[in-house]
């Protein structure tokens, strides 16, 4: 160990008894080490004096314990999410829930009576699309002013409402599909669900986006027309329209392509969520006028 290191350890009281005695013997005869020791002693003295002069704040343990026991970010996010869903559930029209349940029951009864699965496949997406056009905007929201004035982002509010309504629609459709098992074997359940799930997603997303941009009535008209168009039989209308038959066939294939419908549906939902900012700006302008 060189003298420099020993000197530091001596100044910091890190030498044992014999090392200290030995170093003090060296120190008494070494002018350089004495000069350095003076420097280190000044440094040690200043550090000790200044550190001891500033007492540690007494409140730190309380704030640390508060931080320790604070809920985690994930838990806070979950709490906020459930609170938002609960709040939006209270603000939405009650008729939505009863109306869609009643329609679903009627169309299930029709499907069972005529023993045709297609009845349900046709009406389930339409019921879902109809309900999502009623969930957002000054046209239908009884608490629109409150919604727009709240610090929660409009897109979060729309997403919360869309989640609630979509979950309810899927639940109703699942119940109706199970009801169809009265006339069909249980093995058909998966195929039945796939029959309505993807078209329901796309049609609902389209109707939602259109309702935000051009209003509920227009959105319903356009989305229902687009949905029903695939069931057109052009040859029955007249031979003039027969040339459109290949196009119509492609159009039908589009509605039977689950992957494409899901991708486009989610894209439209993202676009609809983005559109909420535009709706809020329009409302603010109308209030300003």
């Amino acid at each position, binding site marked *: 160990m060189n003298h420099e290191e020993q000197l530091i350890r001596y100044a910091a009281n890190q030498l044992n008894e014999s090392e200290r005695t030995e170093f003090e013997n060296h120190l008494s005869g070494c002018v350089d080490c004495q000069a350095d020791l003076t420097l280190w*002693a000044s440094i040690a003295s200043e550090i000790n004096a200044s*550190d001891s002069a500033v007492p540690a704040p007494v409140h730190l343990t309380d704030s640390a314990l508060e931080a320790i026991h604070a809920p985690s970010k994930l838990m806070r996010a979950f709490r906020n999410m459930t609170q938002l869903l609960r709040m939006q559930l209270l603000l939405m029209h009650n008729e939505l829930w009863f109306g869609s349940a009643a329609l679903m029951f009627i169309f299930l009864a029709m499907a069972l009576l005529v023993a045709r699965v297609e009845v349900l496949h046709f009406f389930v997406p339409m019921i879902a699309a109809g309900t999502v056009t009623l969930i957002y905007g000054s046209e239908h929201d009884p608490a629109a002013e409150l919604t727009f004035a709240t610090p929660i982002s409009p897109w979060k509010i729309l997403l919360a409402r869309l989640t609630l309504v979509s979950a309810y629609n899927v639940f109703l459709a699942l119940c109706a599909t199970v009801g169809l098992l009265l006339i069909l074997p249980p093995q058909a359940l998966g195929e039945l669900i796939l029959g309505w799930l993807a078209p329901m997603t796309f049609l609902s997303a389209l109707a939602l986006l259109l309702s935000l941009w051009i209003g509920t009535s227009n959105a319903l008209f356009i989305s229902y027309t687009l949905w029903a168009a695939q069931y057109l039989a052009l040859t029955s209308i007249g031979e003039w329209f027969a040339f459109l038959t290949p196009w119509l066939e492609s159009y039908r294939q589009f509605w039977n392509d689950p992957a494409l419908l899901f991708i486009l549906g989610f894209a439209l939902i993202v676009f609809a969520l983005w559109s909420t900012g535009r709706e809020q700006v329009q409302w603010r302008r109308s209030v300003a006028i």
Partner: protein
Amino acid sequence: MRADLALPWQTQANMTQPVDDLDLIRRMQAGDDDAVRDLYAQYGQRLYAYALRLTDDPATAEDVTQNTLVTAWRTARNFRADGRLIAWLLGIVHHTAMKAIRNRTNYLDDVAEESIHEDQPSPEEQAQVKDERRWVRQGMQSLSPEHRAVLELIFYQELTLNEVAQVLDVPLGTVKSRLSYARDHLRGVLTRTEER
């Protein structure tokens, strides 16, 4: 060695350790809130002093110390009994403080060091210009947090050179070279002060 520059350990009682470190860790692992209070009562002054030395700002030092307690609580299971608890805690303070400093990036650099010496002292300060503590304080402030850290850990926290290397997460050679740099730097400050 001058009589008025006695080493701190020659004039003060050493820091005692009445609380068992391992017991503190076990209690924190078991979720005992009082362990945090006992830990702070035992080491709070040293942790805060080190945080303040590194950050040079009381508010940031408070945040760093509080975050250190929270981190110690959450990572108590990672404490290895082969080292001292204070070295482990100071390592957390160091890491937390350096992160805070990086975010702030306003510690004194060489330019700032020059500005310290160019400051016009008040008449009262001029009278004290030869005061040893004043130039040491000035010199310490003009060092980087990494160099201040080494001096603080050795002379106030009473850590060995190996423990300092462990806290700073650098090789032992780096600790020694930082000490040499700090000594030369402070000697230079002293020389400039005496020339005025």
